[in-house]
């Protein structure tokens, strides 16, 4: 796994000569992005909404937008030089046709955008993108809505971004989740629409691997997008809900470079999911100091101590919440005093979301004959030691009894030393 800029933006840089220094690299990247932005600018604005008037309408100052631009540039791991290009890419988001479909979910990822305290830059950007279809937000319903979806899929075939929110049930031939008046199964809808997409985004934990619907015992056989879609660039943007920054950032990256960002082994953008939450946590010093919250509301909790003993899974979880936070950087779970539940990790509901350290948890998880993935390693270990201990005691008693019998019968075994003395030089064997 590479994290340096050259590998993060290899595709964008690939069009230019190999730069020699990091300064050359930044300039080369800037040139590549500018060329791509010119292409995008030549495309027709689809949504009919421009960002600048929207910002003015919602009294978001130029300064606020520039602050957002700097933050996004940094979040995307771009050199500061590229801030103007990021701002330009934000303006050009209205060129991208987006089809957003939902399966087994709570619409939490959509809500993460639209239920913020005030209109955030992300929310306004979400308005400017050409959202061709979104069940929760569109005015049309029923057959008209479906017709709109088909029209959009035809019209922008090969160029639209398909956003999939929610798990995909495969049980009963996908019959646990049907969409719209025609009763098409969600799995069929995903297959059909992903065929014509330029890019597929799996938004949230449910689209990532099945999420809450896929948790034990997974009655609907729910899976994530990666289990259904193949042969298309797929980007997972997990978390419950996904951070709007990570969604918009991925779109900005797509506008800037025309390609998917560098991904980790689980298909998540490295720029957002390359670090453990724990590494940049504001309570990290308390972790190292051994200062932990022991009970809700205790002295440790009042002093913002580390939440590790309350089951915080920051040390297990890759995401950027500890840096970008939620709702325009207002706060995040650990900031308000609850541990991380690992929602951007696979199977988080079964394996991470409990308010205890892993060795103290005995929640049953799928497989392993009901043993549970985290059914307390310590319990297992003490059980193992008990078995070994009982075996040792039994063996020792039996040995003593056998020796006692031997002495009583006065029949000493004299089978020792059958080899010749030369062999005794051997240094083989163990101690």
């Amino acid at each position: 796994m590479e994290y340096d800029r050259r590998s993060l933006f290899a595709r964008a840089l690939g069009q230019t000569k190999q730069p020699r220094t990091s300064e050359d690299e930044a300039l080369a990247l800037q040139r590549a992005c500018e060329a791509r932005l010119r292409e995008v600018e030549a495309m027709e604005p689809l949504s009919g909404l421009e960002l600048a008037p929207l910002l003015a309408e919602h009294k978001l100052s130029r300064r606020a937008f520039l602050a957002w631009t700097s933050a996004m540039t940094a979040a995307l791991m771009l050199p500061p030089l590229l801030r103007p290009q990021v701002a330009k890419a934000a303006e050009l988001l209205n060129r991208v046709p987006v089809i957003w479909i939902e399966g087994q979910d709570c619409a939490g990822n959509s809500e993460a955008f639209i239920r913020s305290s005030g209109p955030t830059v992300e929310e306004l950007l979400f308005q400017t993108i050409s959202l061709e279809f979104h069940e929760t937000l569109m005015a049309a319903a029923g057959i008209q809505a479906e017709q709109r979806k088909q029209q959009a899929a035809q019209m922008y075939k090969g160029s639209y971004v398909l956003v999939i929110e929610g798990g995909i049930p495969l049980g009963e031939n996908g019959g646990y989740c049907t969409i719209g008046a025609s009763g098409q199964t969600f799995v069929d809808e995903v297959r059909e629409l992903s065929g014509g997409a330029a890019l597929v985004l799996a938004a949230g934990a449910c689209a990532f691997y099945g999420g809450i619907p896929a948790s034990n015992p997974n009655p609907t056989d729910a899976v994530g997008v990666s289990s259904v879609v193949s042969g298309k660039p797929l980007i997972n943007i997990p978390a419950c809900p996904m951070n709007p920054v990570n969604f918009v950032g991925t779109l900005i990256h797509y506008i800037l470079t025309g390609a998917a960002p560098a991904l980790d082994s689980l298909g998540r953008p490295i720029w957002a999911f390359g670090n453990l939450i724990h590494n940049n946590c504001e309570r990290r010093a308390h972790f190292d100091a051994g200062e932990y919250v022991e009970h809700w509301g205790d002295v440790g909790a009042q002093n913002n101590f580390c939440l590790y003993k309350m089951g915080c899974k920051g040390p297990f979880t890759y995401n950027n919440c500890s840096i970008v936070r939620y709702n325009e950087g207002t706060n995040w779970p650990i900031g308000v005093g609850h541990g991380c539940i690992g929602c951007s990790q696979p199977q988080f509901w079964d394996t991470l979301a409990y308010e205890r350290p892993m060795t103290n948890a005995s929640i049953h998880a799928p497989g392993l004959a009901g043993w549970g993935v985290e059914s307390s390693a310590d319990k297992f270990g003490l059980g193992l030691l008990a078995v070994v201990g009982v075996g040792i005691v039994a063996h020792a008693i039996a040995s003593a009894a056998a020796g006692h019998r031997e002495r009583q019968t006065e029949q000493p075994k004299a089978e020792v030393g059958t080899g010749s003395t030369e062999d005794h030089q051997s240094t083989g064997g163990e101690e």
Partner: protein
Amino acid sequence: MSKKELELRPGEGSGAGEAPVVQVIRVPRMTATWRAIHWIQALAVVVCFATGLYIANPFYSPNPTAIDANTYFMAWNRAIHFYGALILDVSMFLIAYLYVFSTKHKDITDLRPSPENLTQFKEALLNFVTFNRRKRLDTSKRDPFLAVLFLLFHVIMLTQLLTGFQLYVAAFSANISTVGSWWPRLLHFVTDWTLTVFGGNVGVRETHLVTAWIIIAWAVFHIYYEIWRSIMWKEGDIVISFGGYKYVKRAGTKHD
């Protein structure tokens, strides 16, 4: 009958026609290097286990009302855990090297499934499970049962090493390390497959915790087996790890 303590040398044997005596033969088993590695590893295992228990679930805390940023309990525990683990890992590689390439210490041929080794293994196992009633093995020779037990131990330790390094490298940010990016890259290259095999970083962590207990259970059995051998065989097996020799009684001949 007189007793004599002597160390056997090659070619030494019994002379014909001499009176039988019971000799106590000093059989070399562990070189000084080997003993040093043994106790370093034993200490490292205990240290890693104790600190590991704390890291998994911190069971003691400084007084929460006296907020003192200088305690660094977890940082110290983690540091000692890492140092202990690195000492274990390096000594493991050293042992592997000596086992294969050194003729002075232990011999890799102990593990060869030759007829002689298989017979010794079977007899050693039968000796143990029959509570020393069947004793047809030559106790002055190598004990392949123990050799196999140690092979198992090294497989367990390798699991612990690989899962441990995976957990360690998981916390590196952006492949940055104080010794250079080659180190996290090497660790990723060597250990990333454990994520697939054990089921993501949760599975790797769980495996690491469970394996720690298996190591302790193994150590308990090891100590018991040594004590048992010492008591049942009466050949001082327990002192091998201290002095390097065991003492085998032999019906020999009178030399003096």
